[in-house]
């Protein structure tokens, strides 16, 4: 299917340009002031936005499992444990 090769080619060029664009843009922006404060805050804001998207894309099961994962990470600060608890929780919720 030629469609697939078109998709692969265009998506590869676009994605690499986006990634490299970010690298070069980051080097150009000032290291102090508003730009620096914004860039420093960006990772946390992006991750919390991503978490919001993922949780809101689901239903009550995802919301409950998300709350459980949050409690586990607040108590343990442990990545594998938080993942295990979240997966286990959603698995059990979906059995009902």
């Amino acid at each position, binding site marked *: 299917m030629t*469609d*697939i090769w078109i*998709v*692969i080619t265009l*998506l*590869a060029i*676009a*994605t*690499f340009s*986006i*990634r*490299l*664009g*970010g*690298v*070069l*843009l*980051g*080097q150009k*922006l000032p290291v102090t002031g*508003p730009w620096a*404060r*914004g*860039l*420093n*805050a*960006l*990772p*946390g*804001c*992006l*991750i*919390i*936005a*991503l*978490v*919001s*998207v*993922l*949780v*809101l*894309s*689901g239903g009550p099961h*995802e919301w409950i499992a*998300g709350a459980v*994962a949050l409690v586990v*990470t*607040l108590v343990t*600060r*442990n*990545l*594998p444990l*938080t*993942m295990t*608890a*979240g*997966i*286990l*929780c*959603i698995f059990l919720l979906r059995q009902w």
Partner: protein
Amino acid sequence: MLTHKNHSPVQEFLAACKDIAPLALGVAIYGLAFGLLASQAGMDTLQVGTMGTVVFAGASQILAVERLVAGAGALAAVVAAIALNLRLLLVTASIREVFKGRPLWQLLLGAHMSTDENWALMLATRAKGGNAGYWYLVGGGVCLFVTWLVSTILGVSFAQAIPEPRALGMDFAFTAAFIAIARSLWRDRSDLLPWLVAISIVTAIMLNNWLDSSWALLLGGCSGALVAALIPDD
């Protein structure tokens, strides 16, 4: 926070490989699922291997091929996938000190090896006081790259034997991982307002169906960062 001790690149690379293991497991499950989808789209192992190598952005690959299977056409599939990947601009821009003063080949390599998972893991490791710089990022990225290629090619080769990630609850693996990583990225109370703004914007857009979730993510993340930029240091 930025520690430049005498940790060698090799040590950082290997530390990342160890730390990324639980995330790589999640990636492997998704790789198998992508292989299943790719076989439905009529892709062969060469196409799956090539796509993984040159695109290396799992969620966008899944989205593009899913659109193709749904009959959306190549252009619509690419546009949707690019919208999803625009966040990678912010991902690589936000870790500029990692790339500072590096030779061109390292910029190119680091850019291509930057994904949500190893980027976030690097930030979380740093937030906990760990030594995590360029080679930590690349180490995690290379592990995910190999995992993604192997699992997607296995997936397309043995499509009939693959269970849906959803049936195992594995679709929640990354949500849980990013919740844990968000907790590590919390710096102090100055994060509260930007984070609340990010969450509110995403929630408003998604609950009202104003825009696709790719845009909700970008607008939410940027709005939070904008608020942080506008609050002056005390």
